[in-house]
């Protein structure tokens, strides 16, 4: 069921975001704002070594301090809890909240100290004496892949968590038949989403009720399940409070290790225990780094620039433990050819452990690095044939009439109009004038370049990559839910069943329910259930909530509407088909005098049981649990899978210049075209898109978790890990297109990752275009100033020498 498109009352209109009122007055409810009686505080002692055996821990001095309550070691915690979930079939890669026996990266949490205040806990942490015996270590991904590299988990035998080659289509045949081939390598640097709020959690065990209350800055599917499993508690003894506002996440706020740690301490000490990571804890030991990925690519294409086949090797350096990070190589399989008609693909996905901080899910779950590489391939083909880069994209695009379109890896794209949006953006940007401006800048002595990137945002996320990469895992259910109640006085409350980190889900639910019931969304109360009062949710990941929570809210509202219509029909004694719904009032089509108001129905449902249809439950509630559209199937034996259902599209054009003597890239113009189907709230979609670009600018130019050869993390603070400020994000022009999805109730697609999917690709393309006159290309991100400046200087020196010869 879906509604007629293009006739919306509230959907797509430029309405305010309900959540904003509490935030502008400082009345958000963040985890660090919550105080529990007699709450204690945790500080952690971290490993200074990339790899070391923990010889001994002496906490005598720390425990002597007044106000210090406990010093917890990894051994004690591991004995009392189960290891954290490991998505891959690698049982010997065990992960606990605190290091057990061996520390595996600089910053790994080794010991936790509990005290009356965080300051005191830090004082005591300094007094804990830990003796280490340093072990061999490896930090580079390609090194870690080698057999002779020291294994991070000796019991596992090597550093390889995943090495699987997929072949979809006749790759060798297509390569053999193609007149042109090229190859390149590039690397996506280790960065992350780095929310301004670190991860924080409070756990409070009530021994009399046998309930563990948890307040956390969390964005994670199956959080309560994982706590219960690790703590060996029944799941109905874990109550996660989901009305906690999360200060940004974009994927990474999955603090299961932090939560198990404080849950254990709370149970052990019988007091509420809180751990709010400080920035250093977060950066080095919060286990929230993002993909770090080496690509080696070969492309086969014809003389017209049509790409026939692609071989892509992707090696992700996931850090010291598996977690969910290897799966970030799996999700891109659902959009492995981007918006292009590439007939066959060979994809080798490799994940290795190393002595670096653990990775977590980052915005787009691995798709942005892959898009960066697909777009580089398109640029390379154009350069090889001396064709226009945009023209090569146009020639390879899937055309609007070809949807639904099945790609070689088994996923069907729902809808799209790629050339249509490109045309709009080209017209808006006046691409010819932009090229003229580039050439004018070049004539002035600047290096100047234009980058283009046309990228997909797979949305409506499920976990189809899990059974694909780990055949032992048969999970395909990936639902979200909404419950709506009309109370005895006729007001509406809708319940959602997950936390939010700024995506405006309350506004989403209110808008959708308001649309369906034809009532003012601002009059709808949105409640966030705790997990003992909860319906199934898989949380806001994979750009899914507009589709999934929006869909659940729509279907629940329609069930409610149907119930109210049925009550009215019964009360009026007419068939329900004869009635029409108008802003909550129900009228007979045949006789307009035959009607029941909203309040009449409320009265009947809540108070006048004798007027209710037989067998109907009293009250007015409805709920819906929604499964991902098109989802639910296991992969085929030949490794094909329907990954996400809906595909948003974005097209970036960026003009950049570089002062060749300095190397600092400057944005001259940035235009993005964006198509996420029907937009539910334009303000929210705009913000996410621009915010995604800002994040992409960071990943492309500024942000990196950099390590030295000794395995030390060099960028632990905001003085060294550089987030874009308002100065670094240019004014971005946006162009909109709406290509509805046939799979969703309003035609909506996801937009939670938009902007980030293509910005790094476009920026890298612009810089490589700028560097072309020098005959050099940059093959890694981030493109820091000194890296660019030194490369330019070297190229100039070389060409100067060549000229002299």
């Amino acid at each position, binding site marked *: 069921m879906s509604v007629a498109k293009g006739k919306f009352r509230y959907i797509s209109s430029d309405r305010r975001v309900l959540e904003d009122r509490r935030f502008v007055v400082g009345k958000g409810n963040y985890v660090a704002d919550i105080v529990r009686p007699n709450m204690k505080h945790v500080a952690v002692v971290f490993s200074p070594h990339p790899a070391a055996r923990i010889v001994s821990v002496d906490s005598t001095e720390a425990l002597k301090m007044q106000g210090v309550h406990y010093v917890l070691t990894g051994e004690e915690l591991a004995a009392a809890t189960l290891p954290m979930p490991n998505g891959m079939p690698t049982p010997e890669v065990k992960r606990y909240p605190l290091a057990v026996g061996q520390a595996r990266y600089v910053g790994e949490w080794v010991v936790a100290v509990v005290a009356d205040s965080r300051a005191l806990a*830090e004082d005591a942490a300094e007094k804990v004496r830990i003796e280490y015996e340093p072990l061999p270590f490896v930090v580079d991904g390609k090194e870690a892949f080698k057999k002779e590299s020291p294994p991070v988990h000796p019991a596992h035998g090597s550093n390889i968590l995943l090495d699987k080659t997929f072949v979809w289509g006749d790759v060798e045949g297509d390569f053999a038949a193609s007149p042109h081939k090229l190859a390149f390598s590039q690397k996506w640097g280790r960065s992350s989403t780095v929310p301004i709020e670190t991860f924080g959690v409070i756990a409070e065990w009530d021994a009399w009720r046998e309930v563990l209350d948890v307040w956390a800055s969390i964005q994670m599917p199956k959080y309560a399940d994982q706590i219960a499993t690790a703590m060996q508690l029944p799941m109905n003894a874990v109550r996660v409070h989901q009305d906690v506002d999360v200060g940004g996440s974009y994927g990474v706020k999955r603090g299961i290790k932090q939560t198990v740690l404080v849950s254990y301490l709370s149970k052990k000490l019988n007091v509420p225990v809180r751990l709010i990571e400080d*920035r250093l804890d977060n950066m080095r030991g919060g286990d929230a780094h993002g993909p770090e990925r080496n690509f080696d690519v070969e492309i086969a294409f014809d003389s017209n620039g049509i790409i026939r086949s692609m071989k892509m090797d992707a090696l992700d350096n996931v850090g010291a433990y598996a977690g969910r990070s290897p799966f970030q190589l799996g999700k891109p399989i659902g959009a492995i050819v981007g918006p292009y008609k590439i007939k066959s693909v060979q994809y080798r996905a490799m994940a290795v452990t190393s002595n670096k901080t653990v990775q977590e899910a980052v915005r787009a779950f691995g798709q942005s690095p892959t898009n960066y590489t697909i777009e580089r391939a398109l640029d390379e083909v154009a350069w090889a044939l001396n064709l226009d880069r945009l023209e090569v994209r146009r020639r390879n695009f899937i055309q609007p009439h070809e949807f639904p379109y099945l790609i070689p890896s088994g996923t069907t794209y729902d809808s799209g109009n790629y050339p249509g949006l490109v045309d709009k953006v080209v017209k808006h940007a006046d691409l010819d004038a932009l090229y003229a401006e580039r050439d004018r800048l070049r004539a002035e002595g600047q290096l100047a370049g234009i980058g283009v990137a046309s990228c997909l945002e797979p949305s409506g996320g499920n976990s189809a990559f899990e059974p694909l990469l780990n055949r032992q895992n048969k999970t395909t259910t990936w639902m979200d839910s909404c419950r709506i109640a009309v109370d005895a006085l006729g007001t509406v409350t809708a319940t959602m069943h997950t936390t939010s980190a700024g995506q405006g889900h309350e506004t989403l639910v209110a808008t959708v329910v308001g649309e369906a019931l034809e009532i003012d969304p601002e009059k709808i109360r949105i409640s966030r259930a705790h997990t003992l009062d909860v319906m199934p949710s898989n949380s806001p990941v994979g750009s899914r909530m507009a589709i999934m929570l929006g869909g659940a809210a729509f279907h629940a509202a329609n069930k409610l509407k149907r119930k109210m219509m049925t009550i009215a029909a019964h009360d009026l004694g007419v068939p329900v088909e004869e009635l029409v719904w108008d802003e909550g009032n129900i009228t007979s089509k045949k006789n307009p005098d035959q009607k029941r108001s909203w309040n009449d129905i409320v009265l009947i449902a809540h108070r006048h049981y004798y007027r209710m249809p037989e067998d109907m439950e009293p009250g007015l509630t409805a709920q819906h649990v929604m499964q991902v559209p098109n989802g639910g199937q296991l992969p085929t034996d030949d490794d094909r899978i329907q990954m996400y259902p809906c595909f948003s599209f974005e097209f970036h054009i960026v003009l950049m210049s570089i002062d060749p003597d300095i190397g600092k890239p400057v944005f001259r113009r940035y235009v993005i075209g964006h198509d996420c189907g029907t937009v539910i709230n334009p303000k929210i979609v705009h913000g996410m898109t621009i915010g995604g670009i800002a994040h992409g600018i960071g990943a492309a130019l500024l942000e990196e978790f950099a390590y030295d050869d000794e395995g030390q993390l060099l960028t632990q*603070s905001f003085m060294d890990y550089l987030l874009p400020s308002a100065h670094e994000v240019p004014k971005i022009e946006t162009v909109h297109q709406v290509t509805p999805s046939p799979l969703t109730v309003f035609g909506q697609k996801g937009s939670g990752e938009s902007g980030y999917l293509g910005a790094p690709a476009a920026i890298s393309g612009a810089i490589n275009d700028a560097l072309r006159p020098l005959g050099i290309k940059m093959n890694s991100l981030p493109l820091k*100033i000194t890296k660019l*400046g030194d490369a330019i200087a070297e190229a100039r020196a070389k060409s100067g020498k060549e000229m002299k010869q």
Partner: protein
Amino acid sequence: MKPAAFDYIRAESAAHASSLLLEDENGRIIAGGQTLVPMLAMRLARPSRLIDVARIQELSYIRDESERISIGATTRQVLVEKSALIHEKLPLLHKAIEWVGHPPTRARGTVGGSLANSDPAAEIALVAATLGATLRYVDETGENSVEAEDYFIGPMITALPQSACLVGADFPKWNDRFVGTGFEEVNARSSDFAFVSAASQVGFDESGKCTRAVLGIGGLGDFPFRVDVDAVKDRIGDEAALREAIAAAIEDVEPLSDLHATAEYRRRVAITLASRSILNAVREARELAHAN
């Protein structure tokens, strides 16, 4: 990220601050705290006592003293930024100050704090080195002073005696007919410390002849330093000559190398920024001459 415990005392005067330092060598002066507090938070600094000089009113001033502009040590950077006197009489500092942090840090940060802290890439320190400021301090022997060229001696290290409290800096005023200034800096984000920076001031006489020129370079070596460009005074608008002179002058400097910029980068870009800052200063002076 909480500092280790310390005692706190508000000093009533510079002499009081100095006497407190004398009685406890692990004491440390705090003014704006914009650099010190992060170091405390990360426990990279662990003073026994913080001696707060920020409220010593008589140390907050910007004065025109015929030959020099005198700035009190606790003068907030924002006051320098908004000072018409600085804009008119000390245009190089006016240009540099907007590169210092961003508005909230300039609201608390002080001129003396920046000079006492002596980061190799700090802008106020660079201006002091370039113009040859005199730094005044009080210690147990009374009020003393030290010239900028003797004051900056290492990264975060100054010639200030252990018990000294900086009280002010005097920047020489140029009374040349036309004065031009140039300030250039490269950083990753506009509020960050410079990878490398350069400051210049040139004087021209009525006939359009360059009477004097000074250049300072920051972020390159262990501390900001002045480069002698007097030899190229007569070819001050000649970029090639400037670059050659600057390259020669910094040949013996061992550039810093870190995560943000390689040594090669710093050396190469220092030459570029230095010559650009002079050329900009020259252009500005000539424009002033034209306007007259």
